[in-house]
């Protein structure tokens, strides 16, 4: 039988039961390979459930540094009888199926084209442990030990990691290592180790880190100077504020008093959370909230207020699969239109699109400067894949000479020296951004009334059509200014001249870049551009103009970025070919390659509509 053979280049998937402690064992596997100098990318595919439902954990190992999802599965570790029937089906021909053979495999599931390796995990742990919880936990550690032998993973590195992970809980080290040894031994005694797939130490990691995007965003908010965080728990954004709090407890305690240089409030809902952010920002503190699509829906009214009243507001949207409750534990990039035009009336919101934890950190911190400069909401668009999975990332970096840019704010002294009347909405500099004052600045000058209703340049309530239009037009001037304030796109030229282009953003990046290399090897040259901000920087329009055909790769059904490009840049829709992957799992490089090769990219509207005589009579 054919056997997949590779060194440092494979995809392994673990099929577990939710709530059995498998994620930490699987993480041990990924991190050990990372410590052997090989880039890895673990992805947790989990259910909306605390205990009992099937859950998967996929690790891509690749010493060329491709860390997006590749597609296909070379090794399956099947520990969950609930999902074993589907798990065995998805293994690539020639791949390996490692399973718990305490119960023999149903003969109907047997496949001739894959290598099947049975390990009696339940038997071993039943023999070794008496406590039911231990039996469950160590079963996971036993298969990691077996994989160490099967894939030639350095056992010492594995042991070292166990020591690091249980620092402070030393009692747990010895039993964990014992469990690893049990698995290792069993594999050595029963199989030809290593398999055709194996790992070998490399030096490809440099100073990279493994970090979740949500932790990086929370830390970015710390470094960006946020002092007020208000939030409402919602998957997959919850860990943003939890991580902010974790770091704040370490880094933001006033040494003199032991008190907090920050405040965190768990609000009663998302409306209240964003209201607190607007209130705190209005009053001069840097403030943020984190949520996901359903939360952004609820926050719409306040986002419109903050746009119109011009209050800096920072929001992190960790997108998940909608609509409605959708698939709350699956990833998607489907909140773009919701966020870009959040709220009723003519509104446009500033967005940023990070693609790595390093960018989450940088954009998380920069969002506060940007919001203060532009005096408007800034929404950082992450997603579940980026937020909740550990990503192979360049290390975080901070320049100590950086000072915060609080934007146009008049100080007490500036007000004191001012001869003319202060006008909150006077466009003194012609960039559409006016000067604000914080409450309590000056006894007699600079106070104004903030409102969501129309007002004149001196913030006085008015229903004058003329004043209203002047204000709405000025907001468009500000929008033009914003185009050059948001992060510029990153261009990745093909190795030879081409009239084909590709645009992508966020977590599509790693898979798209791998796909572009694969296509290049096949002789298909495509220039690429990664969008990092909205409104679109002038570079985006130029890139599209330079190409005859541009693929837009997105993880949503309706081609939302494409719609925004057509809408904002007045581009002929025929030119923009949507490549849309929206099954809730991170898009793979193979999927993008196939989509580019198999069609002219128009995979929209494939469903046939059978007309019925049920149209509305009007």
């Amino acid at each position, binding site marked *: 039988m054919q056997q997949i053979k590779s060194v440092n280049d494979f995809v392994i998937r673990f099929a577990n039961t939710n709530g059995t402690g498998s994620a930490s064992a699987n993480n041990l596997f990924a991190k050990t390979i990372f410590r052997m100098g090989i880039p890895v990318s673990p992805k947790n595919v989990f259910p909306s459930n605390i205990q009992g439902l099937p859950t998967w954990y996929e690790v891509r190992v690749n010493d060329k540094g491709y860390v997006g999802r590749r597609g296909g599965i070379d090794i399956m570790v099947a520990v969950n009888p609930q999902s074993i029937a589907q798990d065995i089906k998805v293994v690539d021909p020639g791949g390996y199926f490692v399973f718990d053979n305490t119960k023999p495999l149903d003969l109907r599931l047997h496949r001739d084209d894959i290598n099947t390796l049975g390990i009696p995990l339940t038997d071993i742990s039943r023999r070794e442990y008496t406590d039911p919880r231990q039996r469950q936990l160590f079963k996971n550690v036993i298969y990691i030990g077996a994989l160490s032998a099967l894939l030639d993973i350095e056992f010492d590195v594995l042991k070292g990691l166990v020591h690091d992970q249980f620092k402070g809980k030393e009692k747990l080290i010895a039993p964990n290592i014992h469990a690893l040894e049990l698995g290792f031994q069993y594999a050595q005694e029963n199989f030809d180790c290593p398999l055709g797939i194996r790992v070998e130490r490399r030096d490809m990691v440099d100073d*990279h880190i493994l970090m979740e995007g949500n932790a990086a965003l929370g830390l970015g908010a710390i470094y960006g100077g946020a002092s007020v965080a208000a939030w409402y728990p919602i998957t997959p954004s919850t860990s943003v504020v939890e991580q902010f709090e974790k770091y704040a407890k370490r880094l933001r305690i006033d040494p003199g008093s032991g008190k907090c240089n920050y405040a965190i409030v768990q609000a009663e809902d998302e409306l209240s959370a964003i*209201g607190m*952010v607007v*209130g*705190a920002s209005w009053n001069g503190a840097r403030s943020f909230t984190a949520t996901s699509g359903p939360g952004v829906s609820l926050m719409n009214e306040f986002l419109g207020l903050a746009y119109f009243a011009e209050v800096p507001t920072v929001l992190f949207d960790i997108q998940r699969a909608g609509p409605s409750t959708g698939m709350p534990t699956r990833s998607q990039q489907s909140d773009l239109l919701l966020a870009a035009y959040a709220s009723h009336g003519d509104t446009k919101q500033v967005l940023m699109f990070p693609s790595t934890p390093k960018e989450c950190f940088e954009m998380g911190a920069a969002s506060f400067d940007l919001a203060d400069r532009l005096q408007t909401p800034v929404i950082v668009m992450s997603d579940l894949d980026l937020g909740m999975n550990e990503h192979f990332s360049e290390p975080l970096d*901070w320049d100590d000479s950086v000072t915060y840019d609080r934007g146009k704010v008049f100080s007490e002294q500036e007000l004191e020296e001012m001869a003319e009347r202060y006008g909150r909405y006077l466009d003194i500099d012609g960039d559409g951004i006016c000067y604000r004052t914080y*409450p309590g600045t000056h006894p007699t000058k600079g106070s104004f*009334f*903030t*409102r969501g209703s129309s007002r004149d340049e001196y913030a006085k309530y008015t229903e004058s059509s003329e004043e209203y239009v002047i204000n709405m037009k000025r907001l468009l001037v500000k929008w033009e200014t914003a185009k050059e304030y948001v992060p510029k796109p990153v261009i990745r030229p093909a190795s030879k001249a081409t009239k084909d282009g590709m645009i992508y953003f966020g977590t599509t990046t790693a898979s798209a870049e791998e796909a572009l290399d694969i296509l290049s090897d096949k002789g298909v040259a495509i220039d690429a551009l990664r969008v990092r901000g909205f409104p679109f920087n002038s570079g985006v329009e130029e890139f599209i103009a330079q190409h005859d055909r541009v693929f837009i790769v997105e993880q949503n059904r309706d081609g939302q970025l494409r719609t925004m490009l057509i809408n904002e840049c007045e581009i002929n829709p025929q030119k923009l070919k949507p490549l849309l992957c929206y099954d809730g799992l991170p898009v793979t490089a193979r999927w993008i390659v196939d989509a580019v090769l198999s069609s002219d990219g128009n995979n929209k509207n494939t469903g046939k509509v059978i007309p019925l005589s049920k149209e509305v009579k009007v």
Partner: protein
Amino acid sequence: MTYHRPEFRHPELPTNELGYTRKHYEGAISTLCAGCGHDSISAAIIQACFELSIEPHNVAKISGIGCSSKTPTYFLGNSHGFNSVHGRMPSVATGANLANRDLTYIGVSGDGDSASIGMGQFAHVVRRNLNMLYLVENNGCYGLTKGQDSATSDIGSAGKKGTPNPFEPIDLCTLALELGATFVARSFSGDKDQLIPLIKAAISHSGFALIDVISPCVTFNNTATSTKSYEFVRDHIDATGKTDFIPVQQEIMADYEPGFTQEVTLHDGSVIHLYKKDEDLDLHNRLSALQAIHKCKEKGEILTGLLYLDPDCEDLHEIVGTVEKPLRDLDEAALCPGSKSLDAINQSLR
């Protein structure tokens, strides 16, 4: 607007401790209906702030949407104000207060804004004991949309539309007591002698202070069949007693009969005196306040005055443990941990 308030003031207007006259505390001219109870409340806020000698710019006025929420434009013109969205004033006030604990926060809301669309936020701001005056201008109807019943309208009460309200009313005072409010009072816009000391006491209280002020709507709910009309309220009002507010270090001048007064010292050292009508009412006892309200209600009366006060409470800042300095004044040195800490974090992620 074609009319304006004359700028001229008597040259010898009385000044407060800071040297300000009452004029420094006034705002723009009201655009509410002539005779609206809300304007009397604005006047009471102006008087209270003047008498308390608060720096006008150190007050932040926050409101939601509705007739009541328009009023912050009509008082304290030298203060920043924020007319936010319907029913969400509490969240904006919470954020603002967290940003700068040194300002005085006055939130103005209405019965629609607090008891209907904003019921959730009202309940939670009470629970958090945010240090603010939360003043409800309660007229039992929706004025700006022309007189629909609100959730505080009594059963059977009928405004200008003429249809009696069939639903149970929400009493914001009893609700706030249940939710742990640390200062609860009810008043009437037509009784400034009661309202002004209550506002002064509420502002001086370091915690959440609710004053539910019955404030008749002259246009839509001042009918003979309404229980929120001037006439009905005047005829059915009862009071817990007479409240005096004595600022810090001021000698208590009034004589009072022992046994019928209760004296509460606030955090800043000022003192509240209640000359009680009802000997059984204990300002420190929630149950006693709830009983007093219900007893009056059974008699068809409206109990006003100070109902409950806990001067030793912890406000939100104390609960979450923030530094004394306003968070908005913290600089990079306090906020940004710097590259060295980041190097250590990077190392922990390898």
